[in-house]
């Protein structure tokens, strides 16, 4: 048993931390979401530098220009990115599309899609959810019909994050309407400029801009099919496992928690430091415990991956705990802040640039990567063997 990194890994951690500290000063950090064009561009520029340093794809197999390190280094990278509050960009490409193309793509697809991702030049959005297919993703209605060497796409996708930044949309479409629910679905990569694709802006409450996406007889080349036809559901599930630790999310919350603890030690209210309030002390200690549990659960996933094991329930355990924990932290912090919790990023009076109010909104994201209910189902059914 060993809870520590190797010397080499520690060196990597220290290098990336130093790099990010220098390159991402506080005014450029994303306290929670990525709100502005400037934030986005800045985030991309950082990723390009990370790519130049060989770090961006450190968890990728060497044959695709990655590595040559494994899941532990990938996790160190993610944790550092989160703790450094680097504005998030390119994550769908790096964590989802890249691995899918590696595992299921043709040589041509690999050559076309992977290098731009690895150089932080390509941005992808994801077209999985639909208006009538949320947690029940298998019931999707979006159609892709083969017509010669093209596929004709029709339907609508919800929650297309990054739609207005992306060059590509990575999507699931029903290709065999007669097959059982999960067996008639295929994966595609579509250029967002394809005629027939349009986006309706769908701003999120965390300040970032997503879209609802409409496909009206949008024709894409059949060469954009990723993997086997009608096996898309299974491909998508398999590549979910690539970056499952959730360390980036954890670390960004940990950073805000650490800042908040510091704030409580230095801020007086009604003549007393916030940290002198025994209730605040007790609650923050409790949250510290929950945060540490979160960190450990994430690292357990990373460690399992490093041994070649496929975490499944374990990733849901980490995700579920994190979602609950983040909400508890932000609700508690809002209470400790009192009236200051009603301020957003007020130039004069906000504490921590409104980070607590912001992360409180972010914590309303109780459904990311499947709702918390779905994660509970995964844990119970796959992890504990309960009947469906």
């Amino acid at each position, binding site marked *: 048993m060993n809870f520590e990194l190797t010397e080499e890994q520690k060196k990597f951690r220290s290098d990336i931390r130093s790099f990010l500290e220098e390159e991402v000063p506080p005014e450029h950090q994303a306290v929670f979401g990525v709100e502005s064009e400037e934030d986005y561009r800045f985030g991309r520029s950082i990723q390009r530098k990370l790519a130049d340093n060989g770090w961006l794809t450190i968890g990728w197999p060497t044959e695709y220009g990655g590595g040559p390190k494994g899941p532990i280094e990938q996790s160190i990278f993610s944790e550092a990115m989160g703790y450094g509050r680097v504005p998030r960009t390119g994550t769908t490409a790096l964590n989802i599309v890249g691995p899918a193309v590696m595992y299921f793509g043709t040589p041509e697809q690999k050559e076309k899609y992977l290098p731009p991702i690895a150089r932080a030049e390509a941005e992808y959005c994801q077209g999985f959810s639909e208006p009538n297919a949320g947690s029940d993703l298998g019931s999707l209605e979006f159609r892709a019909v083969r017509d010669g060497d093209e596929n004709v796409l029709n339907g609508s996708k919800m929650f297309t994050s990054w739609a207005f930044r992306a060059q590509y949309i990575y999507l699931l479409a029903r290709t065999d309407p007669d097959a059982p629910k999960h067996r008639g679905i295929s994966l595609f990569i579509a250029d967002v400029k394809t005629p027939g694709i349009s986006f309706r802006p769908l701003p999120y409450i965390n300040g970032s801009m997503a879209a609802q996406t409409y496909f009206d007889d949008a024709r894409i080349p059949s060469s954009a099919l990723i993997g086997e036809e009608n096996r898309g559901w299974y491909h998508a599930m398999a590549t979910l496992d690539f970056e499952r630790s959730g360390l980036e999310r954890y670390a960004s919350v940990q950073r805000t928690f650490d800042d908040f603890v510091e704030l409580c030690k230095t801020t007086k209210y*009604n003549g007393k430091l916030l940290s002198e309030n025994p209730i605040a002390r007790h609650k923050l200690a409790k949250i510290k415990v929950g945060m540490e549990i979160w960190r450990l659960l994430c690292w357990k996933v990373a460690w399992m991956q490093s041994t070649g094991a496929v975490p499944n329930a374990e990733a849901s355990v980490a995700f579920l705990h994190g979602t609950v924990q983040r909400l508890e932290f932000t609700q508690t912090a809002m209470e400790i802040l009192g009236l200051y919790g009603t301020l957003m990023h007020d130039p004069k009076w906000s504490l921590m640039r409104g980070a607590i109010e912001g992360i409180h909104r972010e914590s309303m994201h109780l459904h990311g990567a499947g709702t918390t209910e779905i994660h509970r189902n995964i844990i119970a059914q796959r992890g504990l063997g309960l009947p469906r």
Partner: protein
Amino acid sequence: MDLGLSEQQEMLSRAAREFLEAECPTTLVRELEDSDGGYSPELWRKMADLGWLGQAFPGQYGGSDGTLIDQVALFEEIGRAILPSPILTSTVLCGQTILYGGNEDQKAALLPLISRGDTIVTLALAEADAGFDGGDISVMATADGGDYVINGTKLFVPYAHVADYLLCVARTSGADSLFLIDSKTAGVNITLLHSVAKYKQHEVALQNVRVPRTNMVGQLDQGRGPLGKAVDWATVVQCGEIVGRCQKVLDLVVDYSKVRVQFGRPIGSFQAVLHQCADLRVAVDGARLVTYQAAWKLVEGRPCSEDIAMAKAFAGSASRQATAVGHGIFAGIAFTVEHDMQLYMMRSKIQEANLGDSDFHLDNLGGYMGFPT
């Protein structure tokens, strides 16, 4: 024992609900968020006509002689509609303070104006280092001839930008006194704060603001008396507003759960959803009862400090629960700005913090229970 509203109160509630459903849909709420005023003067006028703005004032001051119970019932509807307006600060907090502490001239002059919606008064109490209950007030009022000269900065002052008067809590010789400051007086500087739900609260910087002695409400150094009573009253009203909002969130998730189908079934048939709804129902029912009990005791002139503390503490936790349940069940769509759930969530932050949050009231309650500090 009668734990229900009277027929007349039920009628008032129904009428208010119908009125607000017609006049204050969430589209209006969104418009008002983006407006400078943060409330609809047109709607404000109608509210005055309905008698809402002087609901609890005596008839002699243009009021409707309503009780706190009536007011809670009305604020359940206001909370349900998440109506943005200065009604709580102007007619309840300031109105009640003037009623409890003002002299006959002040009451006769101001209450009818408030009641008619012609005058808006807002309470300037909180400061940078002190919560709503004041702690040590740093804004100073110094006697100078027949005037007082006021200096210092107030924070979180709602609707100061549209208020005709600021009811300002200031330190005088030995303790706190209350002053009505005409908001157009020289030296009053009002800056909008960047707040959730674009709530119109402000920094109010007071620089050598000169106020005639006759604008003092209540006796010198004794402002805390009437203010405390008004805060008690308003806290119960605030609870009513929270209950109304939580009930609305419950209604919304229940309606959605009946029609949203996933895995071939309405999601309301899944225990995980169903149980969250059931638990929220428990919280809302409880919050409503404890709120009305506090209102009833205050109306009856019984000791009710414990009850008020319990009501606000529990309403706060019901409010957090409603937010979590709403966002959990609506899931993805509730994370979008265009969905209404965020409107209720954003306001939860203001209402939970306003007039003391759960922990503040639990701490008070601990004191009432006889625990040493």
